[in-house]
């Protein structure tokens, strides 16, 4: 699969990637709530406004087994293949690597022959993952200069415990190469990973071990401040733990990591889902401070007062609906940060030109625990709320779905989430508007999770050149 010139979807810099042609297809992980009857699937969505099938699923690739819980996924290779210290420019962005978060099974999906009808070409079984890397529950993955890096929530013992960490997969043969860490220091909980290639630094965040999350959000663990709240900084090449930053015990669930795309910048954003004192969510900025990394809170999103009758049991006592910021995404020009408030049903847009002082410039409400805000093209109230968000390379289109994680969905939306995917238009001045032509209702039983755009998107690639 080696090519004569680089894959046309690889770009040396984020600036050049913003000139890429608009995506025509989106791939979306589809969880099946009836886990014993039907497998999860990868949906292919038509996102070409000129097509008659715009905003609809045009094909569905069923997984070979039931109960995977498809969640996050990504490409085998991307723009980081152009990096100067490990150049592989003639591999192709061709395979989607699709892990099952619950089953620990990893599917390799070929999109080349017919991008609208991808095919599974290889499956890595959980036993292989455990034997080669001693990990389970693969979560986030990123195509790096030296292979595919995947975070994992659990150990390979099969006991639901930790430590979780990072493992490597070869980006051509798709063999699990082994555990990434040489010295993990105090790191135990795992969730997201990404890096600053220009700083030779990897960053990881914390959720919980499989036994802390798989049966739902555990109120005892939450109130006991047992969920993840630290961010870890690593030497990317020596694979050693360098520094931890603890947000403090009240900040629970330190999840998504969005480093600046420009490799000369050394900052990024992370969301903490819930503050135990007031149920607020917060966005944190990490940055260089002398020879060390530092973090500070730059956005606070308060909980909204609510009638307990409208709240699920887990929230009744609080008389408020928390924003539950479960995902964020940063545009390729590092200027716009999108923030999903899954609880209140709001998608926010911030201008982060000055990363220390973000300015809220746009907001759209859809769904939400109490708000149930409507979409102009859909009948009735919506449930679920903005969750996995993806921004196009040119920064003009924003897509998101409304499901988080099956057992957590049931806690916060006990009526059961009816899943949808929508698209927003992002104006250059900072506003956000709903594309009325785009409202995708998933079939009953399916819930949409992460979206990947054809050719790459704002959270798929990393760059070694400014």
């Amino acid at each position, binding site marked *: 699969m080696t090519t004569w010139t680089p894959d046309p979807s690889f770009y040396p*810099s984020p600036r050049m990637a913003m000139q890429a042609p608009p995506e025509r297809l989106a791939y979306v992980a589809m969880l099946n709530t009836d886990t014993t009857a039907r497998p999860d699937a990868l949906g292919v969505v038509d996102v070409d406004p000129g097509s008659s099938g715009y905003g609809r699923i045009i094909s569905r690739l069923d997984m070979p087994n039931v109960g995977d819980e498809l969640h996050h996924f990504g490409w085998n290779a991307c723009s980081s293949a152009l990096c100067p*210290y490990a*150049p592989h420019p003639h591999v192709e962005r061709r395979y989607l690597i699709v892990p099952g978060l619950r089953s620990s099974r990893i599917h390799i999906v070929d999109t080349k022959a017919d991008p609208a009808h991808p095919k599974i070409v290889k499956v890595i079984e959980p036993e292989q993952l455990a034997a080669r890397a001693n990990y389970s529950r693969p979560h986030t993955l990123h195509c790096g*200069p030296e292979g595919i890096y995947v975070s994992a929530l659990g150990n390979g013992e099969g006991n639901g415990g930790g430590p979780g960490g990072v493992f490597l997969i070869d980006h051509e043969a798709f063999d699990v190469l082994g555990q990434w860490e040489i010295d993990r220091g105090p790191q135990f909980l795992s969730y997201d990973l990404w890096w600053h290639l220009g700083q*030779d630094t990897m960053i990881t965040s914390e959720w919980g071990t499989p036994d802390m999350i798989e049966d739902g959000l555990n109120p005892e663990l939450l109130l006991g401040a047992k969920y993840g709240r630290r961010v870890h900084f690593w030497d990317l090449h020596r694979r050693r733990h360098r520094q931890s930053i603890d947000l403090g015990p009240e900040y629970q669930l330190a999840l998504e990591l969005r480093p600046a795309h420009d490799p*000369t910048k050394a900052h990024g954003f992370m969301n903490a889902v819930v503050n135990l004192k007031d149920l607020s969510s917060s966005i944190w900025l990490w940055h260089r401070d002398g020879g060390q990394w530092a973090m500070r809170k730059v956005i606070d999103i308060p909980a909204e007062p609510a009638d307990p009758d409208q709240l699920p049991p887990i929230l009744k006592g609080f008389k408020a609906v928390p924003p539950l910021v479960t995902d964020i995404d940063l545009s390729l020009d590092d200027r716009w940060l999108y923030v999903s408030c899954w609880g209140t049903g709001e998608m926010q847009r911030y201008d982060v030109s000055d990363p220390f002082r973000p300015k809220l410039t746009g907001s759209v409400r859809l769904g939400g625990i109490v708000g149930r805000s409507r979409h102009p093209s859909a009948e009735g109230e919506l449930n679920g709320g903005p969750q996995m968000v993806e921004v196009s390379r040119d920064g003009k289109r924003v897509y998101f779905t409304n499901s988080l994680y099956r057992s957590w969905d049931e806690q916060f939306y006990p009526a059961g989430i009816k899943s949808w995917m929508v698209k927003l238009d992002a104006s250059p001045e900072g506003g956000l508007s709903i594309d009325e032509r785009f409202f995708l209702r998933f079939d009953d039983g399916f819930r949409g999770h992460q979206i990947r755009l054809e050719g790459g998107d704002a959270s798929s690639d990393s760059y070694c050149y400014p």
Partner: protein
Amino acid sequence: MSDAWQWLALIGLGAFHGVNPAMGWLFAVALGLQEGRRGAVIKALPPIALGHALSVLVVVISFTMVQLVTAPDLLKPAMVTVLIGLGGYRLLRGYRHRVRVGMRTGFAGLTLWSFLMASAHGAGLMLLPLLLGMLAPAQLMALSLCGPGAEMTSTIAALGSAAAGLAVVLVHMAAMLAVIAIVGLVVFETVGLGILRRGWVNFDLVWAGALIGTGIGLLLLG
């Protein structure tokens, strides 16, 4: 092959190695862009050329040792096997990079990186046929100077080879350094990185082809 042609071929191979983005000019450009100044590009070039030259030097020394103790009729088939074997292996296996050198590396790191890249690609091995033409005569000349049976023969032969070998390494390095400097600075100053998207042909394939072609050429030239 005349003496002049051999040196020209040596310079040509230096240029070929230098023009490959994966051999270092791209790294120099990246460091220049990271720091936003041309000086960083220029500063990165000497260690990259040095690492490359050290890798070639290892091959030259190995060749000198081997040819001093090996019958000439065994030398050529061995070289043909090495060249075609490495080229074929690279065609089938591709190139894997697991170097622990990143973007914030210094002189030593760049030298090490360049040494490893040149060695993994078989940069020095590509010079084998030229070494045969350039180092063996040096040894013969030393032999003729001393006359057969002279006591100093082997020492002078080795010195002759060493001088010729050093010249080979230095000329190759100079050619490579000149090309990475020119290409790196032109890309940094004027052309820009967009060239990578269109102009970065698969040097790995060309390189493997060059190794195999050199091996076959050596075989055919008898």
